[in-house]
């Protein structure tokens, strides 16, 4: 069995499963946030009764992150609904706005707080829940109705997916990031190329990546239509997870006898710095091919490209240079923001580097303009701007106005492009 099949079989109390089986699985963690939490809670109350209790308070994690720094009163009301529910249910894992516990983007907050563990099953009311496949677990996004059912019974039906395997041979050259690899893959298979399937990443190229870079790979499987991402567990995974949680877990192993839908092999060094042009993540080109396209904005943030390693990468290029285009820096979480303020590159903190370069830095960690959000959201594209971004989606209107154009790229490429004001291959600065 593939790793995905092993995890699902184990959680369905079965020895084996095959792709296509419909099974009920036990859920280890259910995550929800401010956009989908209130709807989920509404359905939970309607279906299980006004006095119903969640199946296991230890397993429900609530992370407000989407619409935080806005004056939109409806958005604030959503947070109030979460707060009241957490109190009523006595939920220990709630990261409330305006408190020391506040985190920011849920997919980055989950591992930071020890909620992602190898071999487990994680569902979240957010499509990028697949990010946690980087920890060797089954993780996928669901809607409010499914989440409400899990809240009540701790189970959900799943159709066992076929697995597509992607192997990268050789470590990444210094100008490439995981974002380039995943944009390359999506360009190959298309935005529906992995629909209903698991995407498994392996090979020494993948295993040489840091945990944050592995998260970037799994984060964007949904942009290929994938159900979940999966990366084998190794010492890098175990070391990270053990540093965050003392809870026990049982990893599954990459099994040489597993059957795959398909296996694709790439040589890491053959990949170029890659961008996805408007208006689709599979509209692939190399940064060189886009050379000279004029930009109004550069954006570095989100669950894809707003982790500490992403800012280290951006700062490597921005150090000692000035941006020519409006550049927005949005740390995904408060922990990342602390890292940006304290991590030093040649004697200067990342924050100082960004400030000296003339970038605008978000006052708080959140999803911000990754999904547009209310009109007063930091970095939102309110006109027909052309933007290069480390985020994950560039469908029309994703970052605000439906007349804006968004290019997706790695933090290296975005930083290099910010300096010249046009799309630029990062090798020019590395």
């Amino acid at each position, binding site marked *: 069995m593939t790793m995905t099949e092993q995890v699902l079989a184990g959680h369905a109390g079965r020895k084996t499963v095959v792709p296509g089986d*419909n099974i*009920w699985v036990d859920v280890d963690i259910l995550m929800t946030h401010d*956009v*989908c939490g*209130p*709807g989920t809670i*509404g359905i939970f109350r309607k*279906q*299980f*009764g006004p006095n*119903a209790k969640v199946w296991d308070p230890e397993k429900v994690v609530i992370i407000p992150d*989407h*619409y935080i720094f806005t004056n*939109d009163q*409806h*958005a604030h*009301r*959503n947070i109030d609904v979460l707060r009241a529910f957490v109190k009523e249910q006595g939920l220990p894992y709630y990261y409330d706005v305006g408190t020391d516990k506040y985190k920011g983007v849920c997919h980055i907050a989950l591992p930071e707080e020890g909620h992602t563990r190898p071999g487990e099953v994680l569902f979240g*009311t*957010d*499509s990028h*829940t697949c990010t946690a496949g980087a920890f060797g677990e089954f993780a996928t*996004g*669901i*809607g*409010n*109705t*499914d989440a409400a*059912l899990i809240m*009540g*019974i701790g*189970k959900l*039906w799943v*159709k066992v997916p076929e697995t597509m395997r992607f192997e990268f041979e050789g470590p990444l050259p210094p100008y490439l990031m995981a974002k380039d690899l995943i944009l390359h893959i999506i360009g190959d298979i298309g*935005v*529906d190329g992995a*629909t*209903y399937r698991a995407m498994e990443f392996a090979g020494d190229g993948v295993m040489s990546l840091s945990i944050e870079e592995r998260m970037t790979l799994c984060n964007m499987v*949904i942009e290929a*239509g994938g*159900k979940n991402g999966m990366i084998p567990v190794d010492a890098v995974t175990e070391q990270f997870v053990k540093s965050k949680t003392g809870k026990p877990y049982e990893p599954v192993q990459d099994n040489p006898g597993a059957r795959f839908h398909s296996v694709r092999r790439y040589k890491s060094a053959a990949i170029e710095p890659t961008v996805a042009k408007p208006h*689709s993540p599979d509209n692939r080109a190399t940064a060189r091919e886009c050379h000279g396209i004029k930009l109004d904005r550069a954006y570095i943030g989100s669950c894809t490209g707003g982790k500490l390693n992403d800012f280290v990468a951006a700062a490597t290029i921005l150090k000692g240079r000035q941006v020519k285009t409006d550049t927005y820096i949005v740390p995904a979480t408060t922990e990342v923001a602390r890292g940006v303020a304290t991590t030093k590159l040649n004697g200067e903190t990342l924050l100082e580097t960004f400030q000296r370069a003339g970038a605008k830095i978000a006052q708080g960690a959140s999803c911000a303009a990754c*999904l*547009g*959000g*209310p*009109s007063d959201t930091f970095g939102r594209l309110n006109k027909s701007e052309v933007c290069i971004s480390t985020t994950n*989606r560039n*469908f*029309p*209107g*994703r970052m605000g106005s*439906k*007349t804006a154009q968004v290019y997706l790229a790695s933090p290296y490429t975005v930083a290099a492009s910010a300096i010249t004001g046009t799309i630029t291959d990062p090798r020019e600065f590395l």
Partner: protein
Amino acid sequence: MQDSIRGKAYVIGDNIDTDQIIPAKHLVYSLSDPEERKLYGKYAFSGVPDAAAGLPHGNVKFAPENDYRSPYQIVVGGKNFGCGSSREHAAEALQIAGVQAVVAESYARIFYRNVVDGAFCMPFESTQRLITEVKTGDELEIDIPAGTLKNLSSGKTYRLRPLGDVLDIIKAGGVFAYARQAGLLKT
């Protein structure tokens, strides 16, 4: 489950993601409040670029000004319908607007699952590309047992794919009813 669905077509293209079905800035409205939830119907498909809204000509509003009910009950889409975010608001917005069925070439899985598990409308897959066959405003009739879609405006009939695995959930009336049938819910 009813046997047939009849209504006017609203035709849109490929890769219609959930941000186009219901733009993110509208996700702040309450789905539980009977009045406020109507706003989801009002803004359904408001994220589709004007030229692509209501093919073949575009520039067709899905819901009229000042109304949350759309005159179109059957949405005809291309490939990968409902891709993008997992927001169930997208599936529910269609139901609130009065959509009874979507007929697309293929679906993104979270949207498809949301439609089925929440019993918001019927998701059919076409066996051929219909967005070049059907025009916005055409009168359509879906015969569910026969698995066909008839375009009453042109007189042509098209085959739909069988609903397959999810038929049991659709017949039960959503995932809660399905879980009750499986004995997983006491309430």
